[in-house]
């Protein structure tokens, strides 16, 4: 049975990560940025699982588990913040939320 080399998985992860990064950096909609970040997290997870397989060590899988929990927490708080921001400003366009401009 032909097995897929690990570098394929890792390249795929890098690709997903790059796509997610570009999305996070260029999108203006807060929710879309969030989605891109989830994409990046998933790419990282894929890397972890791939290395876990390659090294025969399950630590990578455990870290993926923690990443998922953290992502859940992040999504809950982040979305709540968006709701609060939307109530106050009627928009979640990141470009318009620049109160912190120096």
């Amino acid at each position, binding site marked *: 049975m032909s097995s*897929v080399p690990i570098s394929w998985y890792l390249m795929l992860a890098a690709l997903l990560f790059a796509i997610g990064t570009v999305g996070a950096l260029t999108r203006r909609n807060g929710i879309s940025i969030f989605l891109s970040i989830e994409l990046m997290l998933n790419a990282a997870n*894929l890397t972890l*699982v791939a290395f876990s397989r390659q090294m*025969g060590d399950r630590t990578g*899988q*455990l870290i993926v*588990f923690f990443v998922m929990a953290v992502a859940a927490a992040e999504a809950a708080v982040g979305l709540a913040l968006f709701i609060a921001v939307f109530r106050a400003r009627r928009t979640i366009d990141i470009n318009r939320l620049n109160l912190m401009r120096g």
Partner: protein
Amino acid sequence: METFIFLIFAALAVASSLVVVMHRSPVYATMSLVVTLFSVAVLFVLLGAPFLGTLQILIYAGAIVVLFLFVIMLLNLQKEGEAAGRRRGQLWVALPGALIFIGMVGLVFWRAGAPDLQPLTEDLVSLKGLATALFTDYLLPFEIVGLLLLVAVIGATVAARKAPDAADDSGVLPREDFVTEETARKEARP
């Protein structure tokens, strides 16, 4: 067979992630993310982590992304318009950066060659081993993550709650699907 499955789902993941990033409608982007997540879950199973694959669907697709969708609908977000002051500059920096990144990783692998995947061991796949490690060696991180989730729940509740005084003073009716017994009684009073 395995290569075949990998190629299908890898292509699916890349395609759907491109949709996530490029589609202007948040709903489509979100639904594409579900496809990406599903593909990655399949890759997890291929890599010998079926538990994580299931969790990926259960937690990510079943809960987190639903939450995204819920918020999108709650705020009734429309497509990102071609508003003024669109920052092209951002894209022209980010895109080359991403390409450099991919090139960098590719170069590393080109140098290192492509070693075959290690054979799958029973120990790595077994759920019992994972659970044992989680509740012994990684108990402290596990507890901390639990605490983090609790804090997140409380924080999210506080952040998303309407300011109580603002709701009372504005005289605006609470939204209809959130009319509670108390507010209903308050409205009924002359």
